[in-house]
């Protein structure tokens, strides 16, 4: 069928007919995009603006009142210049530690898996199957995926029991569950897929002849990886990192559940303040968190043009 190609309609014939409806098509485009734009306006732009406004309001136990005070921000950074830092800075440092650890694990892991799928799996069907295998757990509840660690990591869990029966340890290891370790483990468990997908997308677009060329020019496997593949994968790495940074920075569920409600995180502070109806304080916290996240992302987006990646 392919060799029976129809001649392309000449542009000159189509142009006069298309000229009149073009204006209509333009206005139609506005109509088609409007609902989506409206949703973002009502549920993203306005809420964020209100958050910024309310962060300057005053509050007591009963009510919040419109004002223009910097008190909420002053409270937030109260005592930050002292030697043992303030709660806010310590909370941010703890959250940043989780970001760094999660990135340090998910990035090489995500890259290895994406590389394996893109370059080493030869059949498209197998690739699709394995890819689905990686994304299916993403479709079940995060809460369920987190409680799944309890029977494994608990004091009498599978890991401790196995180690004990092998005679490697006498007393159960206490810090497996409800610890920093558990939090990072859960982050890696939940977020690696956000690294795999964009990196895989970048790898899949690499022209294979570039790799052949590198090999023909005498590059070793590692040199090809480092000098050809890795630079071309930068956009995917950046997008994956942006996802991981936002997910970990704003998290309050994972840190709460896997940390046994003992580890502080910025998201959790906001949640607690909301529960106590201290909205202006929560809003000020949210503004600072947003600024911190945007700053980190700004650094990452310098590397890429997001629109071109799709």
């Amino acid at each position: 069928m392919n060799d029976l190609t129809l001649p392309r309609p000449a542009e000159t014939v189509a142009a006069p007919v298309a000229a009149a409806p073009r204006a209509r098509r333009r206005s139609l485009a506005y109509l088609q995009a409007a609902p989506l734009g409206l949703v973002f306006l009502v549920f993203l732009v306005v809420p964020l603006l209100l958050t910024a406004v309310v962060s300057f309001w005053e509050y007591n136990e009963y009510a919040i009142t419109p004002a223009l005070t910097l008190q909420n921000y002053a409270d937030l950074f109260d005592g930050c210049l002292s030697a043992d830092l303030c709660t806010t800075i310590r909370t941010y440092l703890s959250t940043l530690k989780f970001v760094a650890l999660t990135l340090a694990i998910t990035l090489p892991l995500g890259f290895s898996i994406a590389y394996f799928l893109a370059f080493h799996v030869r059949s498209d069907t197998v690739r699709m199957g394995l890819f689905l295998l990686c994304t299916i757990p993403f479709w079940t509840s995060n809460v369920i995926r987190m409680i799944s660690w309890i029977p494994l990591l608990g004091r009498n869990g599978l890991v401790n029991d196995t180690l004990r029966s092998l005679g490697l340890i006498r007393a159960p290891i206490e810090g497996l569950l409800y610890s920093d370790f558990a939090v990072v483990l859960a982050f890696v468990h939940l977020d690696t897929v956000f690294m795999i997908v964009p990196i895989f997308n970048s790898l899949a677009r690499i022209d294979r002849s570039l790799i052949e060329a590198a090999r023909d020019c005498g590059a070793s496997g590692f040199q090809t990886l480092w000098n050809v593949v890795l630079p071309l994968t930068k956009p995917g790495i950046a997008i994956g990192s942006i996802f991981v940074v936002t997910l970990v920075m704003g998290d309050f569920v994972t840190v709460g559940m896997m940390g046994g409600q003992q580890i502080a995180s910025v998201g959790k502070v906001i949640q607690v303040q909301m529960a106590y109806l201290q909205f202006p304080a929560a809003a000020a916290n949210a503004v600072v968190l947003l600024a911190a996240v945007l700053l980190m992302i700004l650094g990452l987006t310098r590397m890429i043009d997001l629109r071109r990646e799709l």
Partner: protein
Amino acid sequence: MDRPRGFAFYGLAGIFCLYVLFLYGPTLTILTLSFQGPSGGLTFPMNGVSTHWFAKLWEGVGVVDIWAALRRSLMLGLVVMALTVTLAFYAGLAFRKGFAGAGLVFALAVSSLIVPSIVVSLGIGLEFRLLDDAVKALAEATGWGFLQDHGTFMGLFTSALGAHLTWTLPFGLLIMFAVFNRFSPAYEEAARDLGATGAQTLRHVVVPILAPALVGVALFGFTLSFDELARTSQAIGGRNTLPLELQGLTTTVTTPEIYALGTTTTAFSALVIGTALGLTVWLQRRRARRALAGLRP
């Protein structure tokens, strides 16, 4: 690329296998433990095999009406799914034609993804609280009867729906971009040349060709909404969705009932995804069959 497989292949294959084990291991553990015998605890060993905990779950978990929460999550998920597919599809069409402000809308969609969920949730919560306060102030000032017993605008199909859409729509839009980038305009031109109106082209040409991708967007919309927790948390009002109830239960329920609940919700997600994937395959087969039938004289 077809060279003999070397050390790198086996190393990476090993990493991949370990990752899959890491990914599925915990879920399989609670799947097994949810069939724990009546006297069994939260960890191994299994004290017999039974469906005891599923039966207990069926009777209800403490004071929480888990089935009502499931129904709420299901309804919300279906509404979010329908809106995500429709809005993302039309927005995709609009972006294809191009319009002034397209860059701004795209930037909004991306921001919606990267603003931390807790911030979005807090913002929407604040928005609705301020709206309620304004209505109450108005009621006091004017004395209008119909405003007097205003409770709150917050609810499943207002603030929670909005919160979910800020999460599902960007994904939907990005998928539509990827789909439209691979969609040849020649089909539409052909339809136009044959005299089809815009609506006819959409109905008989574009939608049928994109049907599998649209099912994919629907699937994404539903599952993202069904499991969404962070964005819902501050924007839901009184009645919780299933993930929120689940999170609450993890601290209070100390029996394998919680695993039974986990298994049930996972099975539920799997059922929805399986149905959608089945539908996609069926759509593609049907299209292929029709195309073949069309070729016969």
